């Protein structure tokens, strides 16, 4: 199916031969294919609509570069807009002026919070920080144990009060423990929850009010579909998400959910997860994801050479 779209795009682009300026027709035709590519990549349908409309308006009348066909020129513009939209602002973590820096990890069930918590802790440890991981998921069977096993693996301490305690209390006590032991970064692993679970969303709000996190990181599965728009909106509205971690990008997903989330929350994507193994988190590269979402590798390499 993906191949099919790429091919039909190529055909559409081939039809457009080099001219001086992009005409409405040139743009219209290429944008139809861009729309399909974005939808196939799971970019939210409304986001696609707005995006296509804005880029279309911007593209009409632009000069066509000598070495490109009008179709390629449109793709170039689309690619640049996508990259710009997903990039921008700082993507480092905000560190507290007076340690410890507190980071809350939040997101849907199974998105990769616990794994990412460990990866982040490892990154900090490698940079001469002293992280502490806090096991605040008392719901999922063996969630605390999972974090403890990972902590031992990467030699990072884990704070927990067992499954019988209130997660908000655990988070508070975890931060206090960090102060006591001189840890300068506290990473709080929270339970997965759906954004429509009122009680559990309130729990996060209470936790935030108690521990005043410097970062609230929304952990999102890169394979996520159209619903990313509602998830991102809900978490952001309630908690003021400060950054996004896109996990499982080692899959063959096109990852369009990232664009949706970026568009809805305005929060930068700070890291990507590229595997199950606990290795330091990787930085996010907007240009790579833009090219992945468009799924037009050959066109883009052509453009890059132009």
């Amino acid at each position, binding site marked *: 199916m993906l191949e099919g779209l790429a091919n039909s795009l190529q055909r559409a682009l081939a039809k457009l031969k080099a001219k001086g300026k992009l005409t409405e027709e040139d743009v219209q035709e290429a944008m139809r294919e861009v729309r399909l590519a974005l939808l196939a990549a799971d970019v939210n349908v409304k986001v696609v609509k707005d995006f296509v409309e*804005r880029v279309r308006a911007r593209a009409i009348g632009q000069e066509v570069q000598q070495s490109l066909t009008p179709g390629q020129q449109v793709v170039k513009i689309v690619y640049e807009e996508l990259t710009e939209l997903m990039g921008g602002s700082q993507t480092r973590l905000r560190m507290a002026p007076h340690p410890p820096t507190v980071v809350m990890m939040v997101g849907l069930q199974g998105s990769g919070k616990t794994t990412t918590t460990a990866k982040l802790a490892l990154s900090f440890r490698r940079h001469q920080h002293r992280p502490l991981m806090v096991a605040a998921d008392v719901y999922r069977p063996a969630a605390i144990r999972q974090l403890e096993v990972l902590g031992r693996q990467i030699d990072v301490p884990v704070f927990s009060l067992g499954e019988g305690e209130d997660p908000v209390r655990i988070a508070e006590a975890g931060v206090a423990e960090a102060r006591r032991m001189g840890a300068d970064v506290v990473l709080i692993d929270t339970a997965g929850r759906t954004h429509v679970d009122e009680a559990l969303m309130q729990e996060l709000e209470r936790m935030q009010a108690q521990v005043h996190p410097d970062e609230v990181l929304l952990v999102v*599965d890169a394979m996520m579909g*159209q619903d990313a728009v509602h998830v991102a909106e809900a978490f952001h509205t309630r908690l003021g998400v400060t950054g996004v971690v896109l996990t499982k990008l080692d899959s063959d997903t096109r990852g369009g959910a990232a664009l949706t989330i970026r568009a809805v929350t305005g929060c930068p994507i700070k890291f990507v997860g590229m595997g199950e193994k606990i290795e330091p988190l990787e930085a996010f590269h907007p240009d790579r994801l833009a090219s992945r979402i468009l799924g037009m590798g050959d066109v883009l390499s052509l453009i890059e050479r132009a």
Partner: protein
Amino acid sequence: MGLLDKFRKGLEKSREAVWGRLAQAFSRQRLDDTVFDEMEEALLAADVGVETSVWLVEQVRKKAREQRIATPEELPALLQQAMEEALAGMDVTMRTAAAGPSLYLVVGVNGVGKTTTIGKLGHRLVQRGARVIFAAGDTFRAAAIEQLQAWGKRAGCDVVHHSQGADPAAVVYDAIAAAKARRADYILCDTAGRLHNKAHLMAELSKIHKVVSRELPGAPHEVLLVLDGTTGQNAMLQTKAFKEVVQVTGIAVTKLDSTAKGGVILPIVREFRVPVKWVGLGEGIDDLEPFDPSSFAHALCRS
């Protein structure tokens, strides 16, 4: 105003649920192209995907023409009908062994809900008086064994396990032996989450499958692919790859208690003809239901 701000402003209009917009389209006076465009958009927003959305809208158009329907209010029923037709003719029952234990192999990518689904399914079977053994075939993920043990305790099922890092095929081998010795009715095999695009992990799964069919005639009686209901079009690629490697016989779609509609199962069933057998509706032990095409279609078309 920055690029991003402008973009977000544009999005604000989309706050109301997509299906709300569809309802709006259905309440329009005349049946024109706008109505069908809105319908297509609503389907896309439920992860139905481009091809199947276009196809479904075409089916509705055809039906509307044939039945000389002139007002949009009658369209939801037609859409639901088209969806049910697409999902029809699939055997949703779970196969069992004629004699001896039935073995179900549960597979899927990371974090979709395999272990949880095994816990819920075990509970269902136990409630009907069956004796069930869980095989802790995920020897990779931290505390995966402990997680399955917790579910075993809740559901009243024995758990056969080795330690982390052990060969999963050996675990399954032992579970089969234990099931025979203890006269168990079912063996539910958990497996580690694996991405379908990782050849070595898929090869490992194929090996487990081989051991199962060698050690227990007729097994696996079901290969259940677990799909996360919030996943987008990648679920198609997952189904294709797992089907090729372990001959998936049924699908469980989890996490439909969120606002995701799981619409991707429409193109999956249409293209791969693998029946959806279960839906997961929460994290509790009772939150597993048999799949019902008409209530699924209803939820997609009317809510």
